[in-house]
């Protein structure tokens, strides 16, 4: 498979600017470079002041970095967006139904669609969740679905982030920063607002209460603490939602209910928006060494006395081995053809497929089944011979740990570099909120951009940046 030039969302085939970007082009033509550079500097200062930074794991205490922010917005039309939304809603509903099924009667296994081994031998399958009924039957309160574009009308889901989707604070702050830096752009363009995301999320969580909740339900956000890489996002969201930000040591099980320690003693908590891995949630039921969680929390949950968002055990749905079954999963639960495509995926655990992967490794991306953050992957076309031969050994030793996908050419959008405008690859993470009442998708999402030329790695942990994402009004 040869690498064709990527689809550029501004220039398409290079001849004329695409319609949605017409105003962007006019704006860029009218600005001079020094003033754009100055604005870019201002934008960075603003991010530092707001504190929208991330902590780097393994680096010295308190080191905070900015995620590079590019000032040129990424534009999506209302039609494109509406289509995406239909696909997202279908997919998230199916994933939620899938989670309920695998933790209950496992119809999908009985129907012969998903092999039992995919669950049985999967560390992301949380056996403690078997038979547990989450309030409102909701597992996926928030989903961050990574979407890539390869052509004018071709969108693929690259992965589903279900366990603890992050990055929404960047979506919100990128917009705030653009509003401050370039207010005139929002006068000239009709961009759909996203600012109500936190309020909508709070409403969505309050629509998913446990039956024991009373009149004024208490919602709080559980963070692992200030050294967590996403701490600022936790603090930011708690602030915007007007809820308490708690750590494990603020919480306690009192008389069979989850309670937080207030200035006047313990008070019941109804909904826990958790930003902590399942494993650390409760030392009595999961990892006994965890000091970040709440002893006995899961027992309260099992009795239906607290909502945890997202539900424990949802990680199985963003497992990359399960991902390869997603088209079948969507069809099984929705009874419809999937509106959003999966990227074709080879499962190395299957002998024939492993052979194909080994034979074509130069053209494929190999990913760890349980990995995330872009770590432990191999990008065939750009890898060295040594990397490839090392990776082949790993594939042969533990094939079940890997999947492979073609190196799809992610679409590009221009960024502003020191040398002028240059195309860079992007993806898109829209955030989907789900309650028993409805699915809500704020028009936009996090556009991640690979800052260096030709790179396909958009992960912030590896130098990727972000852009403001505009969904235009019709």
């Amino acid at each position: 498979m040869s690498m064709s030039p990527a689809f550029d969302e501004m220039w398409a085939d290079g001849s004329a600017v695409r319609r949605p970007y017409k105003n962007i082009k006019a704006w860029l033509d009218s600005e001079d470079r020094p003033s754009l550079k100055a604005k870019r500097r201002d934008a960075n200062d603003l991010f530092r002041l707001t504190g929208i930074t991330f902590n780097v794991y393994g680096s010295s205490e308190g080191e905070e970095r900015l995620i590079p922010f590019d000032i040129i917005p990424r534009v999506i039309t209302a039609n494109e967006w509406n289509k995406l939304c239909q696909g997202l809603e279908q997919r998230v509903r199916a994933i939620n139904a899938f989670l309920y099924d695998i933790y209950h009667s496992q119809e999908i296994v009985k129907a012969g669609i998903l092999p039992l081994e995919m669950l049985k031998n999967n560390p992301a399958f949380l056996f403690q969740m078997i038979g547990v009924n989450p309030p409102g039957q909701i597992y996926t309160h928030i989903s961050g679905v990574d979407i890539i574009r390869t052509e004018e009308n071709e969108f693929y889901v690259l992965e589903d982030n279900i366990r603890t989707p992050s990055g929404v604070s960047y979506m919100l702050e990128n917009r705030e920063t653009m509003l401050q830096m370039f207010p005139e752009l929002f006068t000239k363009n009709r961009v759909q607002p996203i600012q109500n995301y936190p309020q909508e999320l709070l409403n969505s969580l309050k629509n998913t209460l446990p039956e024991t909740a009373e009149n004024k339900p208490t919602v709080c956000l559980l963070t692992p603490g200030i050294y967590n890489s996403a701490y600022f996002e936790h603090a930011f969201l708690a602030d915007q939602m007007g809820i308490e930000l708690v750590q494990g040591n603020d919480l306690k099980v009192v008389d069979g209910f989850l309670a937080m320690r207030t200035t006047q003693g313990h008070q019941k908590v109804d909904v826990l928006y958790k930003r902590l891995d399942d494993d650390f949630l409760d030392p009595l039921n999961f990892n006994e060494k965890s000091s970040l969680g709440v002893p006995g929390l899961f027992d309260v949950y099992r009795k239906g006395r607290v909502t945890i968002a997202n539900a424990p055990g949802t990680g199985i749905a963003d497992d990359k081995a399960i991902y390869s079954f997603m088209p079948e999963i969507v069809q099984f639960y929705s009874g419809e053809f999937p509106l959003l495509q999966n990227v074709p995926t080879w499962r190395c655990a299957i002998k024939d497929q492993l052979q194909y992967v080994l034979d074509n490794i130069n053209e494929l991306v190999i990913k760890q089944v349980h990995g995330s953050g872009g770590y432990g992957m191999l990008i065939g076309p750009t890898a060295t011979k040594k990397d490839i031969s090392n990776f082949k050994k790993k594939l042969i030793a533990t094939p079940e740990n890997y999947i492979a996908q073609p190196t799809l050419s992610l679409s590009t959008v221009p960024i502003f570099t020191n040398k002028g405008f240059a195309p860079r690859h992007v993806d898109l993470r829209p955030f989907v909120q789900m309650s028993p009442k409805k699915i809500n998708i704020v028009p936009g999402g996090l556009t991640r951009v690979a800052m260096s030329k030709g790179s396909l790695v958009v992960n912030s942990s590896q130098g990727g940046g972000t852009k403001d994402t505009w969904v235009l009004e019709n």
Partner: protein
Amino acid sequence: MGSRELMLGNTANGLFWTYRFLERAENMSRLIETGQRIALTRLSSSDEQWLYVMQTSAVSEEYKKQYSIVEKEAAVDWMLRHPENKSSILSSITSARQNAKMVRHALTTDVWEAINGSFLDIQKLLKNKTREGDLPLILRTIKQSAAVVRGATYGTMLRNEEYDFCRLGTFIERADNTARILDVKYYVLLPSAKAVGTSIDNVQWETILRSVSAYGGFRLEYGHEAGPSDIAKFLILDKRMPRSLIYCCDIIKLHLLSLCSVYRNKPPSLLQIIQLQNRFLTHDIDAVFKFGLHDFLQKMISLFGNLSNQIEIDYRFYE
């Protein structure tokens, strides 16, 4: 209380300490400024006077463990930015910001950005050892930062429990600081003290007054004839002076009362401040001297410590 739930004990803790550390950083900058001013304007001054400045801020013992002699450059560096000095300006502002980060959601955006912005500015300024020529700019920046945080707090925070805990932190730290400043050189304030030279033209007194930004105010209110015991009166019993013990205690009581009306209870901390006021702050300065100024100040410092601990217990800071 409206429809909101009660705040977390841990949040109260974070707010309280954010403002204690902010106050500490500001007081430290004032002390350095005082030391520098005296060094520059007094022919007779020696590096030894920095020891006095450090004693005033209770950081001299640790300094002596690190350095064998008292000399200006080391003393200024110790108070400004030395990481081993937990009360240095850099340590204090870092702790303040750390606490603010923990309770970011309980602060307004304006206050958070004021604290975070101050931290970023001061951290940058104190990255390397300070050259003497840069000292005025640095001290000015710190004072301005403190003013911006104070202004944002005053102008944007709701007058609710959060605000009460912020103010309690500020005023307990301030009361403690004022008492310490007085106690280090209490003997020069005794009515029997023999003043060298004219009434307030005395290095010791000037240092005390400048350390609490009260040099001008004192002269204005008490005149040039005022004696050392007037300084004690001014800093202990003058309700117009926003750093006096009596003023700080009034504000502390105000906010403890405000918490009581929110929670509809009367915890021991409230009784403690009322007792403290009744026993020690309802008499005139002569009574204080009769009690013994040093004993009085020591008593106050220990009572402020008890009060701070009691607040932590009453409002479930830790458990």
